[in-house]
């Protein structure tokens, strides 16, 4: 298993990101241009292969990840059970790993590419700087994170009821 981003930071093809790239993603809708410029300057586009691990459960969450294309699995490891597939993320623009926004900033699940995928990586520090400068913007961004977590929770609840069908997140 190849852990691509969080642990072996140099693995995976990378590319620069512009504010225009972010504008096209639903998560960033309504965010002012100056903030988009700031985030884009820190963000990186990452291309991954099938089976590559994006983040690993319990590791420090140093960045948020957004799916640009492809498909990613959400896995949760349980002692004595192993990795349980909790759902599959395939919507372009969706937030893949939200622990960068939530104390104690440790990933609560692992994310692995189910097929070749392209991701956007935005460091946690870039968001935190924005929040320090404009708390109300921070409030609005965290509302978007909450909505993404809500979808993840709905998927987990659906999976709890119909475990034969991992949720489409």
């Amino acid at each position, binding site marked *: 298993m190849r852990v691509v981003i969080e642990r072996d930071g140099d693995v995976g093809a990378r590319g620069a990101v512009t504010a225009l790239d972010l504008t096209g993603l639903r998560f960033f809708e309504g965010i002012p241009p100056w903030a988009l410029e700031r985030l884009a300057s820190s963000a990186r586009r990452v291309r991954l292969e099938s089976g590559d691990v994006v983040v690993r459960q319990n590791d420090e969450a140093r960045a948020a990840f957004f799916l640009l294309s492809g498909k990613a699995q959400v896995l949760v490891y349980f002692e004595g059970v192993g990795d349980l597939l909790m759902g599959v993320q395939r919507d372009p623009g969706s937030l893949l790993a939200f622990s960068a926004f939530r104390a104690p900033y440790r990933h609560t699940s692992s994310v692995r590419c189910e097929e070749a995928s392209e991701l956007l990586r935005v460091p946690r520090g870039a968001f935190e700087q924005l929040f320090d400068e404009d708390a109300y913007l921070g*409030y609005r961004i965290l509302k978007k994170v909450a909505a993404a977590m809500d979808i993840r929770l709905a998927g987990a609840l659906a999976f709890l009821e119909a475990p034969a069908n991992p949720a489409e997140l």
Partner: protein
Amino acid sequence: MDTLELLRGSPFFEEMEREHLEHFARHARMRTFEPGERIIAQGDPATAFYVLDRGKIELSFARPGGGTLPATEESGSETGGQTPPHIVGHRGHPVGWASIVEPHRYRATAVAREKTVMLELGRGLFEERAEERPDFGLAFMRRVLWLIGNHLSTTRTRLVAARYGDVPRAVRALLEHNAAALSVASPLHKIPHYLENRLTLDDAHHTLEALEREGDRTERELAAQITGLLDEVWREVEVFRRLQEIYEIVAGAPEGMSPEELRRRSCEAFARMFEQTGYVIRGEENLPDRPGHIFVMNHLSNHLDNLLPNDFILTLDTHFVSSMVLLKKYGEAPVRVVRKSDPGEHGHQRFYDRLGYIYVYSGHVDPTDDDPASSPEERRRLFLDAARRHLREGRNIVICPEGTSTETERSPVPFKTGAFHLAAGVRPEPLIVPIAVANFDKKITRTKTATVVHEPFRISDHLGENVGKEALRGFVNDVVYARFRRYVHEAVELAR
């Protein structure tokens, strides 16, 4: 002041500055909900956030596309596509966080289980405050992420518990996930061990309650999550307590109390317990208008979880039929035919001796010289005399003609003919009412049981008067037993 104290004591608000809490306390309102009243409904627009002040609420989540059975008066709590409800009674518990998060649709349904008082905070309150005080908005949303994250963590752990039927393992996993923040000396580490044994489940309950009140922040959060995870375990504890109480109602009753009174009290207590379980009853229209008939049913094994400390197990299927079907229809508990206690089965004997049931003797019961049932012929005569007397006096009799019990999947096993001989020999001839049951051998808190009453018949309608032994045996084996196999299969399907 009460409102402010409520907010300050709520885990959700505890980190927020006092000035914000005072603001919300001034603008929030207390609402009282009567038992059964709906507070929020899954899928409805989420306009308010609630904090539990007093009472208890039942939270449930309808599975997507679920609902194969309509919720009727005959349906227990687990029908209609709903997950088993989660009961919440902790002061300060937040409900309705979906009001804060787009698309602002409630994720669950909350119903007052008893008279309940909730603090209601309109969605606009938070949004307006966040605009006025962005620092509050940011801190508030961090708290919302904390709350949703906890729900997510609990849901995932429940998934493991449900999939593997192993709650201690799921709790260990939850503790493992939080190992970095949890003290090694925390009493939470004892919880998986307490959960391993039914006799220490109460200790788990008390420990978690204490930690939710007095633990450090991590302990309080985890204790609340584990408590939510253990809904089914608490239900099992509750069922076990009720079984203990039912046993004591009968075995510990005052000497002078009549068997009729004890049968009624025991059945009423069973009915209260079964009302809390998932069940379906069908075919009640087949019950005769008046009592005085023989109800034959398949008999299912007992789940070992129901084993009382004196090694006695209260059978659930026969008590369900007695309490939920016959007591409700006729207003009096039936007389059952039960086997005589084996030597040394003191718990069995203390219970059944008080109820005035009709005994049948299994082969290994060795009657003593002073036992009136000193020979097989005498035992048979005593059985028939007692049963006929009850029938003539208008009492219902419940008999399991298999003479043993088995799992739902193997039920029914071939019938003995005693119940049918009894029916053929009594005048006026009683009806035989077939009742098929399913799933009473499973954990009663984790299954749905089914009970189906079928069309009654008289032996004479099929075999005429003065029926011979061979003809009766053939009828029971070839007709009644064959029908019952189909009946039980249908009950199993109904319970799915």
